[in-house]
């Protein structure tokens, strides 16, 4: 460390602020007026910060938000469907657009016997049993699933591993569903996490349409 290559302290502080924000998980405020070498540091800092971050998988809420946005019509999104005759009738009248991304829900609803579809929904939990940030197992008919409350949004995935159909366990520390048979790991969006341990990525966990009505959570048994 010779005095002549001592970097200016305002640059040192600016880069450290950027690092601090990354390490906190925040979007860093733009840093102005850095020489190119120091600007390149910001990109490498972002890469290093991603290595041990818990945010390296997309949140289920984001995946769903983007799915809805891409579908272009929030009202058609399956979470937007109302558990009423009118809502269902509207869903049918509108048909299922080819590019509607929210296919699971609408198709499942269509498979049900027309507008009396609510008969196909079964209550699986009280909303009060599923505060934000929690996961709850349920069994409905021959369906095993997990309910999740992610930031206030209720979400359900099949609890059956797409590898050999063993049942998955929720690992709160990892925020993942883990298979006791061969160790497959899935995130809360249902995507396999440890793809590198398999010859080919496993299919994602099936999403189960879920609705909340008067404090009760229902799922569709198709």
């Amino acid at each position, binding site marked *: 460390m010779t005095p002549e290559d001592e970097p200016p302290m305002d640059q040192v502080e600016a*880069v450290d602020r950027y690092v601090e924000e990354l390490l906190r998980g925040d979007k860093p405020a733009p840093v102005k007026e850095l020489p190119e*070498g120091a600007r390149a540091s910001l990109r490498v800092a972002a890469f*290093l*910060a991603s290595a041990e971050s818990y945010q390296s998988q*997309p949140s289920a809420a984001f995946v769903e938000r*983007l799915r809805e946005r891409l579908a272009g019509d929030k009202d058609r999104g399956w979470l937007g469907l109302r558990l009423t005759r009118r809502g269902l009738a509207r869903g049918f009248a509108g048909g299922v657009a080819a590019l509607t991304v929210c296919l699971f829900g609408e198709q499942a609803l269509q498979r049900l016997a027309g507008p009396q579809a609510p008969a196909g929904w079964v209550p699986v939990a009280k909303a009060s049993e599923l505060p934000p940030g929690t996961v709850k197992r349920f069994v409905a008919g021959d369906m095993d699933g997990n309910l999740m409350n992610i930031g206030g949004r209720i979400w359900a995935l099949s609890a059956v591993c797409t590898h050999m159909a063993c049942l998955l366990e929720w690992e709160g520390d990892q925020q993942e569903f883990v298979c006791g048979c061969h160790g497959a790991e899935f995130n809360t969006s249902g995507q396999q996490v440890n793809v*590198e341990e398999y010859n080919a990525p496993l299919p994602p966990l099936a999403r189960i349409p879920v609705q909340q009505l008067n404090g009760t959570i229902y799922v569709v048994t198709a």
Partner: protein
Amino acid sequence: MASFEGAGSLALGQRAVGLLDAELPRAQEPARLEAPDFSAVYEAHVGRIYGYVFSQVGNREEAEDLTSQIFLKVYNSLSRFEGRGSLEGWLFQIARVTVNDHWREKYRLPAMPLPDGLEIVDNEVPPDFNRASREDRVGQILDALPPNYRDVLRYRFLQRCSVKETAAAMNLTETNVKVLQFRALRKAAQVGQELSW
């Protein structure tokens, strides 16, 4: 009358096409693929694309923003995907361009080349950006640094120590830690540019 003739020639046309198809060797049929179903593409790839973007920006907000941009681009151009090469490779190219644009617009940084042997060409499977491979690449960058640079980055980024904790662990002042971090990152950026990630 005209409509009858029209119908007749249409039927004949269909038959002719059918015969022609049957007589052509399969290899000469144009390799046409249906445009893939967008929802299936989204469900299958959103996790991986987000993972890649996150590795390049290091924070959730920008990663979500760019991932959205990427899928909107994909949505608008899926019909132009011609089935040459893998769909994943094509998606990943869109993702890479989007990320590079982000850094160029924000910080006038040049595009990051891909690691050796991972250039995306037609049938190449894109590099893996899952957690394990990311950690490998981080390890490669850190290993190429002088020990004190490596240590400060390890404490800060891998062990998530504060400047104060890092200073205590390395027996330095907090200002020294920040200066060391500044230099270590500058060097890591050079190494990274050579190694790529």
